[in-house]
């Protein structure tokens, strides 16, 4: 019990000191409220402990039965509160214990998403460009297949030459057929000149 009292006094002193520091401007508002909250919590714990002890009869005195029954209810309530407080202390993490650790924030997720998005866009660009180059048909300025075109809008012009060589002279006939289907018939070959008989100088009379 003495310990609780001394703790309460200590807490009260701390409260006063805190109020003084805050009034003098030695600590920031944020820090003030944080410390005040911590001290309040300690004070509550202390109160709970005190109530528990009182409930256990260590601080008991002679009272009426009603008083005791009321006190019993109250002590039950206090015990529940104390238990609750203990549970809270046990399982709820003190914010100060995780002060040094870096908690992933929404902003951090945003950064990661942005980086992923940029990386994906770059990847998509590279893949898209590559696919485009892969599938695009290059202009066929020069055909891969060798082709020859000999169609003509003009009528065919053929210059055929037939050479006929008779026995004693040569005669050349030029002709130009107008169609490809007609077979030109060459002129009949002229008969070679007959050799004139020469009278025998020493002819015998018959």
């Amino acid at each position, binding site marked *: 019990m003495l310990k609780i009292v001394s703790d309460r006094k200590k807490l009260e002193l701390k409260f006063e000191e805190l109020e003084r520091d805050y009034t003098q401007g030695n600590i920031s508002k944020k820090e003030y409220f944080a410390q005040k909250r911590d001290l309040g919590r300690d004070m509550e714990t202390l109160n709970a402990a005190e109530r528990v002890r009182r409930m256990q009869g260590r601080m008991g005195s002679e009272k009426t039965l009603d008083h005791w029954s009321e006190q019993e209810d109250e002590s039950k309530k206090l015990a529940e509160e104390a238990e609750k407080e203990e549970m809270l202390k046990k399982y709820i993490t003190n914010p100060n214990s995780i002060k040094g650790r870096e908690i992933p924030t929404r902003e951090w997720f945003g950064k990661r998403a942005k980086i992923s998005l940029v990386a994906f866009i770059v990847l*998509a660009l590279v893949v898209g460009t590559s696919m485009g180059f892969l599938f695009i048909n290059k202009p066929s300025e020069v055909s891969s297949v060798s082709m020859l075109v000999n169609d003509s809008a003009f009528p065919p012009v053929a210059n055929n030459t037939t050479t006929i060589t008779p026995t004693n002279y040569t005669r050349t006939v030029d002709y130009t057929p107008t169609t490809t289907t007609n077979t030109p018939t060459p002129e009949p070959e002229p008969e070679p000149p007959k050799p004139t008989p020469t009278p025998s100088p020493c002819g015998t009379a018959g």
Partner: protein
Amino acid sequence: MNRNLPIILMATLFMVVLVSGCITNDEKANQSNNYTKGGVFFQYPHSWGLAKVNSTGGVAAVGDPQTVVNGKPTTSVVIQKYNNTNYYNLQTAYEQNYAKFFNNTGKTKVSVGNFTLNNAKAYETVYTSSESGIKKKYRAVWLQKGGNIYVILCSAKVEDYDAQKANFDLVINTFR
């Protein structure tokens, strides 16, 4: 909701990349190549290629490589320059050319006509021919460019001709 936002964005981007990267066939179908050589310019279909030209007065030839038979494309366009030794005007040259063109040949006239191309008169003759065993349809467009007379001769198998009309028009309409 906020946590899902990056995932949704990524999924959307992924879909956009897929859609833009893979579904482009229709665009490609409308693409064309340019030919600029020998003082002439024209556009021809993206899937076609240049061909060697062995025709009289041949300036350029393009064809569809997918229709090659014995090294010759059945679907092709050849540009020829008219040898105007007599200094004919376009109409006279055209008429002179076809005066005996269909006489005793395997060619059959389908239609003749004229139209305006780039503010200049152009003459055309459509005919069929069964030379070298393949029945083909031809469209010869005669036009004047500067002091020269050019003939754009478009040809394709009879059964393919109608399907190739847009490609032939591309060459004819862009010829400069």
